[in-house]
């Protein structure tokens, strides 16, 4: 009757991009995994690091330029302020749907037992220290550590 208890599952999600629309899928997938009794952890690297950086987490934008689905010409989407505007619009829509903010999602994830990791190399590149990160991040790890952690896990790259 209950298939979930039969085979323990695990997902490792790599979040490498920092757009609002690029961070949410990783967070929601991890959350859904936990809700389904699947072990989950997220590895934040490169621009994805913004989602766990204290100063950036509340100001993630939507990337419009080069996004064919954005219904906006790339030139217009590339104008200053357009990303912030689109990000604002998306946040408004998410609020209407009662979607948690990125910060709330991070809290929910940690509460539900998911683990968040930051990439060491990306931290060096962006000159960030552990003090710059949100408290939900468990550890700063290397790519090798990531593979150790994801043993037996399905890896999802976003």
């Amino acid at each position, binding site marked *: *009757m*209950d298939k*979930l208890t039969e085979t323990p599952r695990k997902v490792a999600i790599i979040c490498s991009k920092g757009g609002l629309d690029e961070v949410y899928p990783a967070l929601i997938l991890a959350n859904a995994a936990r*809700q389904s*009794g699947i072990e989950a952890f997220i590895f934040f690297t490169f621009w994805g690091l913004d989602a766990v950086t204290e100063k950036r987490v509340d100001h993630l934008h939507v990337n419009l330029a080069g996004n064919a689905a954005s219904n906006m010409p790339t030139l217009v989407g590339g104008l200053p302020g357009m990303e912030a505007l689109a990000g604002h619009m998306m946040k408004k829509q998410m609020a209407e749907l009662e979607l948690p903010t990125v910060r709330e999602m991070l809290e929910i994830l940690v509460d539900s037992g998911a683990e968040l990791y930051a990439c060491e190399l990306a931290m060096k590149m962006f000159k960030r220290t552990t003090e710059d990160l949100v408290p939900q991040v468990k550890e700063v790890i290397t790519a090798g550590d990531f593979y150790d952690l994801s043993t037996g896990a399905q890896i999802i790259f976003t």
Partner: protein
Amino acid sequence: MTTNDLTPILERLDRMNAGLAYVVERQRAQEELLGELVPIGREALTTAIGRLDALDQKGYFRFATELAGVAQQVIEGFSPDDVRQLGDAIVKILGAVRALTQPEVLQIAVDATQALEDADQVKPMGIFGMVRATRNDDVQKGMALMVEVLRRIGHGVNALTERAPKQLDKKAKLAELLGPRSGKKRLGVERLQLPAGRPATPAATPAPAAAAPACSTPKPVTTAAVIDGIAYSADGHMVDASAWTPRLGEAIAQLQGVALTPAHVALIDAARADFVANKVSPNIRRLTQVAGVTTKDIYLLFPKAPARTLAKIAGLPKPAGCL
């Protein structure tokens, strides 16, 4: 007959003699003149023939013949009406010629041709060169003039085309060839239309409620198993939430490996109350909002797949939504 009678006769004879002498004299003079003129005339004729011959050799006569041919063609090719119009236009033509031959205008033409003569000294130019060149006052003036000329030519062309009978534009022609075309918005509708003669099959798949986001749409629950008179769906949730009893909840909790505590029961009651109120099985986020518990608490109470386990124990369908 007297001498007196003879006198008038003699006088008349005298006069006659004088007249005769005059006639003879004139005859002689004429003969002399003729004698002089004949050689002159002969010479003149010879010269004239020589001249005409020279003209012929230069092609004057052939030219004239050809000219006559050209004139013939012109007459054949143009109607008198055309010629009359030409007559009307000749003033304008002359005006144009006069304007072109003004010394100032000719000077411009001479300057322009000078540029052509110096063509070998001109360096090739790219688009940036063009842009740079537009900063020159003379180039700007020339460009303005060119644009003005273009404008006037275009104006004239427009006037001409307006006068010409209106032709079907390309799109209209294409539409005529292709026949009636349905709008873009009807593309999906077209697909539903079945070819004539084939009976329309009854809708095998009921239209899904596409309006709601797929994420939160509760799927119709079908019975997969019936245990002790209670129907369960394939994913282990009770099909009919109203058939639930606390005793049944305890039994399901045992199967799920959960030992029910008052905290569990409170949460189950909250979930059931919310389901009754909203007809939607609450997800974890919803539970945190309606039951006043934290996410952490829920995971502590139901460590494995909390919302699902809770819904199963509470006799509710699979929780809706992604959160």
